[in-house]
């Protein structure tokens, strides 16, 4: 299971990476916005995408839309971890096909719960 973590702040990428490692996901890679994330995704081998929303270059919501629009990537589960808390934003993310939405600041338990839920749903399919 290879996970791509996309956030413009390296501290946040590190936090998510460490939390994922605690949850048993050791194989992670990083990108600092949608523009750098897309080529990594297109190169293949990414099984799960964790992305921030507010990033310079390409925002997380546009990355999500790009992933869903790409035939080869469209089924990758996407977890959004973001400080964006407007209802309209959450609705748009849901409509764009996000699999989970975690608001910052978050707890280790919340991250685990959302990831577990995503994989439960995938396993059920």
């Amino acid at each position, binding site marked *: 299971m290879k996970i791509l973590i996309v956030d413009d702040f390296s501290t946040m990428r590190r936090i998510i990476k460490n939390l994922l490692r605690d949850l048993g996901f050791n194989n992670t890679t990083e990108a600092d916005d949608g523009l750098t994330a897309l080529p990594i995704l297109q190169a293949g081998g990414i099984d799960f995408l964790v992305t921030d929303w507010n*990033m310079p270059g390409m925002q997380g919501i546009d990355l999500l839309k790009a992933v869903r629009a790409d035939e080869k990537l469209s089924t990758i589960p996407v977890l959004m971890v973001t400080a964006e*808390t*407007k209802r309209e934003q959450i609705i748009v993310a849901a409509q764009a096909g996000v699999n989970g939405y975690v*608001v910052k600041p978050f707890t280790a338990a919340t991250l685990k719960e959302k990831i577990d839920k995503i994989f439960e749903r995938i396993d059920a399919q």
Partner: protein
Amino acid sequence: MEINKTVQLEAARALVTALESDNEASVEHQLAILTQSQESELFHEVGKLTRELHDAMNNFNLESRLVDLTENDMPNTRERLNYVITTTEDAAHKTLGYIDQTLPLASELKLTAEKIDESWHRFRMREMNADEFRLLSKEIEVYLPEVKQHSEQIHANLSEMMLAQGFQDLTGQVIRQVIDLVEEVEDNLVRLVKIAGKHIENKPKDNKEVDPIKAEGPQINAGDNPDVVNDQDEVDDLLSSLGF
């Protein structure tokens, strides 16, 4: 202007002729023409001044963003910077708190390990009697689960300290917004100075469309805004209402 001059000149000449020939009706007529042309010039000047004033006012209107910045964005920035102070303070206290909790756990493990190590050494040197050995076994029995428990607690505390570092992302987003605002204020001030220096620049008013899902970073006064969720539970409720 030229036409006006010609009219005036013609009227003046006709006036002289009329005066010389004692033609009273013509004198009155030519005087009326002259007065009218002067009035129209006056009106023209007033009109020009009015237009200039209007343009100047409009140019100040162009700078209404500056007023908006002062009235809304500046107080908002104060709140944002206060948010940065509070968030960094909270994160520092949280981290320091976990350090305070963790250090005694590590010291306790170290002290007990040293004590057991010393006793174990005496046992290996056969310097220990049966009673002392029984005591040592008991100490080891208590110590091992304590190592496990303390290590788990230390791990949990370190995870919390790590999460607390998320403040850098949250405050970084807010500081970026403040930097953008400072740049905008600077631009507007430069334009204002240009206008004051009469180098009026007729920049079209930029009608920025409001994007409802534009990324805004952390919400500063989320509690006052019904459009914003306050915590993860509200996110979950909203998503489940959407059939998630």
